[in-house]
């Protein structure tokens, strides 16, 4: 099976007062295994909503998502377990727990998989080293720069070795140098760990690292290249 993810007539409609807005409108999309796919479009075109639906963070109004040949589960808890095992998220604003150190943030997903402390520690440190944070293990997010925080977030997304990483504007809050470093890391991780990346962005430059891009406007795919 070459596709890791497929969406079938995926639709998400929000109701605002009496108005209904289709944030994602009958999207049919396939994501190939081990590729880097970018979803490009202007602000408000439905990129983040689509990413949320693919990753099971949000429920579609109609249509469904198929992951490795199986429809996403419908119950909250089964979805949580699905995310834990199969999906890594990277957000624009990092979404790290400010109370925990960089190392503890990265370790957190492994705790849920009941992996031994020794193994958890070893893997987390290795990954933090891989993203260039060997001197920042015990720093809390508030003590790290934006680029460093995003690298911690990337390490956290990768730590469980999920099949799919969903990144929502991963460089949107970073200066160009840090943004460039993050993109290099994504390419490196894609090669080294054979992981699939779906990146939502409004920055056309990011598409340069992608194997494939789709363009979204008003919740619909308008072209693919």
């Amino acid at each position, binding site marked *: 099976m070459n596709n890791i993810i497929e969406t079938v007539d995926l639709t998400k409609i929000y109701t605002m007062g009496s108005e209904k807005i289709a944030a994602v409108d009958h999207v049919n999309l396939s994501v190939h295994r081990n590729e880097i796919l970018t979803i490009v479009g202007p602000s408000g075109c439905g990129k983040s*909503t689509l990413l949320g639906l693919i990753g099971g963070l949000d429920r579609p109004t109609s249509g469904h998502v198929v992951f490795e040949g199986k429809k996403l589960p419908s119950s909250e808890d089964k979805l949580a377990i699905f995310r834990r095992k199969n999906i890594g998220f990277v957000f624009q604003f990092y979404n790290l727990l400010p109370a925990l150190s960089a190392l503890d943030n990265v370790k957190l997903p492994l705790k849920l998989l009941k992996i031994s402390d020794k193994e958890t520690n070893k893997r987390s440190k290795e990954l933090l080293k891989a993203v260039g944070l060997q001197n920042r293990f015990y720093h809390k997010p508030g003590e790290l720069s934006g680029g460093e925080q995003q690298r911690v977030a990337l390490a956290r997304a990768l730590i469980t070795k999920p099949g799919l990483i969903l990144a929502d504007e991963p460089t949107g809050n970073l200066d160009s140098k840090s943004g460039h470093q993050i993109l290099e890391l994504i390419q490196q991780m894609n090669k080294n760990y054979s992981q699939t990346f779906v990146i939502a962005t409004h920055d056309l430059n990011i598409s340069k690292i992608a194997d494939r891009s789709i363009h979204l406007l008003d919740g619909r795919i308008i072209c693919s290249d």
Partner: protein
Amino acid sequence: MLRLSLNLLLHHKSRMLLTTSGIAVGIIVFLMLSAGTTGTIQRSLNLYRVQSTCDLIVVDKEFTSQQLISVQKIDGIDIAEPAIIEKAAIIDNFYEVIALPRSSALFNIPFPASKVILIPDFLSRGWKVEDNNVIEITYVTPEKRKTVSLPISIFSSENTDIPLKIILDLETGRDLFDIYANTILIRLNPATDINMIEQKIKNFIGSCSFQTYEDAFSTVKEKNQNFLTFKTVITEIAFFIAGIGILNEMLLSTDRQKREIGILKSIGFTSYQIVQVYLAQVIILGILGVIMGITLSLIMIKCVYGTLGYIHASDILVGISLGFFWILLFAFYPLYKAKRSSIVNCLK
């Protein structure tokens, strides 16, 4: 999971401080009131306490020594002792006169460490230890003021340094206070007909009222029921006010917590695991609040009442239960709201 809870908790220090303080304040109010009520109950029960078992109490009747001797000679009566029962002796800041069991004694007065005693308003006077050997008693009534110095050797004392009780013999008490005993405490011989005894006593001292010891005891308990109700109401109000503070802070911090919950959910925490994380926080806060509350309460009770004897383990247990009940009620509502929000909303 516990470590994660602790880390998240330590990050929100203001919430931690406010919640534990709220619980502590609630417990302090509850235990202080409990100690106050228990002290009052204990003192009022002392009013009726006798050292030997008492079967029958003749009340509301002043009598002469001759009448008392006649009662003592009635067949079926083992012991008949004079006493004063001051029914209205539950007065704050006053030490009550206690009914005496000993035939030779009239007053049995708890003597405080401060060495100054005020006894009930029907006597209205001050007692003062002048030195180690002499006690000075000032006695004032509407009719006269009298100050008498007596050697301390005439008092019975359980403590050689500071007497805890002063027992005056009947004649000294009568001489000092011009008060006759108004009560006779009676112990009957086994299998004695109580109605027959009552009739015979009436023949000697005229019309009078009778109470069994159990009647007297239940009267005191009944009177103190009002205190218990009062205590419960005040405590609930204290916990409620503390709870409103907790709720307010929790609602303010819900945005932060919503984000935390959103992050945990996106990583793969199930609802059950999220409840575990926050339940552990609530338990930690509850334990801290309870420890703080009980410690401060005990210190304050010792300072205010001079003894920890008025506080019972059951009161402490009730205080702990109330503390946890309120913290669960007020801490979980915002979390419940946050938990129900979608992950996307939590992360916005």
